[in-house]
């Protein structure tokens, strides 16, 4: 069997008395789009934060690309090719849309300890950045100040930033959060086009999106993986229906 891109081994995390990650073990294959669903407060964001390195787990291991990264700080994980988007839009609001993405390109292309030369006119940074913007349909908004974008556009920018990092694994924390129907539909199209190019771990509330995109689904409830399987298996699982899907799918 091929080595999985990501392996979470018995992760645990508590905030005070609240156990938010409970013995989570997940494997992600190299060509897989793996979705994590679960009600609000289930601990999905906390899990993504542990994988990306913003929060340290209390115990357990995170193995990325065959390497134990549990103790590695977030920037170094990103440098290894671990890219993420944030549920609550996390961009550089005072920078232009293009600069937001160009900075992601800059992160993976040579040293940033360069003190001379105008970064904003480096074609080697702007070109890939424009390509990423094109991919999410934001190319015509490249010169706008990012803080002035509409909410749905910010969600698209968030995705473009992650794409520009040329990830080896993409963590997406509710990429459609707060986007309108039309915007969501557009993002789903973008994601299905990206599928297969690199593995993705997708946290999403929008069940239409999840069942349209995911190869496998894990259901997280009270910090614990209730079950993992193909969309069909998960949809048919009576425990899932009882605990979660029942009211989501009317």
């Amino acid at each position, binding site marked *: 069997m091929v080595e999985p891109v990501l392996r979470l081994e018995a992760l645990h995390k508590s905030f005070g008395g609240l156990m938010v990650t409970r013995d989570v073990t997940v494997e992600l294959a190299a060509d897989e789009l793996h979705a994590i669903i679960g009600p609000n407060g289930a601990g999905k964001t906390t899990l993504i934060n542990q994988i990306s390195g913003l929060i340290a787990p209390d115990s357990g291991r995170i193995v990325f690309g065959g390497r134990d990264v549990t103790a590695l*700080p977030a*920037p170094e994980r990103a440098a290894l090719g671990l890219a993420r988007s944030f549920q609550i839009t996390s961009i550089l609001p005072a920078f232009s849309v293009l600069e937001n993405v160009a*900075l992601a390109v800059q992160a993976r292309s040579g040293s*940033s300890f360069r003190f001379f030369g105008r970064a904003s006119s480096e074609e080697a940074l702007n070109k890939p950045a424009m390509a990423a913007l094109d991919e999410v349909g934001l190319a015509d908004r490249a010169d706008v100040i990012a803080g002035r974008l509409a909410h749905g556009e910010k969600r698209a920018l968030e995705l473009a930033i992650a794409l520009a990092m040329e990830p080896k694994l993409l963590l997406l924390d509710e990429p459609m959060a707060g986007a309108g129907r039309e915007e969501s539909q557009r993002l789903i199209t973008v994601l299905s086009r990206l599928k297969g190019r690199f593995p993705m771990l997708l946290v999403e509330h929008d069940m239409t999106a999840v069942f349209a995109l995911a190869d496998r689904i894990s259901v997280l409830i009270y910090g614990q993986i209730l079950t993992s399987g193909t969309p069909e298996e998960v949809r048919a699982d009576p425990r899932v229906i009882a605990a979660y899907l029942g009211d989501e799918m009317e």
Partner: protein
Amino acid sequence: MMFVAFALFPIAATFGAEAYLIDLFRRIMIFAIAALALDLLVGYGALVSFGHAAFIGIGAYAVGILAASNVSDMIISLPLAIGAAALFAYLTGTICLRTRGVYFIMITLAFGQMAYFFAGSLAPYGGDDGLTLAMRSTLLGFAPFKHDLLFYYIVLGCLVGCYWLCRALVISRFGRVFRGARENPTRMAALGFDVFRYQLTAYTISGALGGLAGFLLANATDFVSPAYMSWHRSGELIVMIILGGIGNLNGAIVGTVAFLLLGEWLSDLTENWEMIFGPLLVVIILLARGGLLGLAAQMAAWYRRENILSVGDFIAAVGRYLRQLARRTIKSTLQTSRSRSRG
């Protein structure tokens, strides 16, 4: 443009034979270098350093202490002044930059005061009283600081150089990361940037420029004292950059000029000038968000909007503005009193 004004100024001043004005403007330019260094941190990194005078002081003491040991050549003293300040910045920065916001302000202040008290305890070098410079710095036997005019233009050259350096820094790859760290450090970490390293580098560069200002200041005043490092000085530097407009290198220079000229002018007018100076600064800073440069930009926009071409237009526009203001004030007063009587 500003630099041209600085360059032409001595020519104008020689006609008036006001040697002291040359002295004043040399001092202004020296502090402008320190203000530029501070604006790099505050304006582009949101790192409000409240101990920046320490770097000036360290640079100045390096000159003073070396001169007291008969070392006056700037081949030695200049790198030492800059290097000592940079080293101090680097060492304190590794600690300060672990903190954020108010804690950062407090801890930079604490390190600044530490340097201040240390200088005051240097008994062989005058302690609290400070130390008169045994001789100004020389360069391989020449004495460039002996001629006031030459000294003036050297300072101007340093100011232009620092401005150019800061400008280049801000727009470079490095500067982009540094500015990004102010905007959203979490995003920067997720992109793969260890923001601490970038901030520490900027802090060290800023300290080095402060050291250069100290080197020049010691030579300009022929004197070094712990007062150069006091927190008043650090506070003044902050006021200067706020006054001119933060996050805009031109603002740092404009602010320094305005601050020091205003102080000079008021102290000529009256003995109790500080009683006017303080409130005046508060008023300017409150009125002009974005400092004097911000005010100028607002004025320019207003001129364009009101289409002001002559003095008459100007008076008419001011009239319109005041009437509008009065109407708005009356309206809001009425509203609050009405809602109060209702409630």
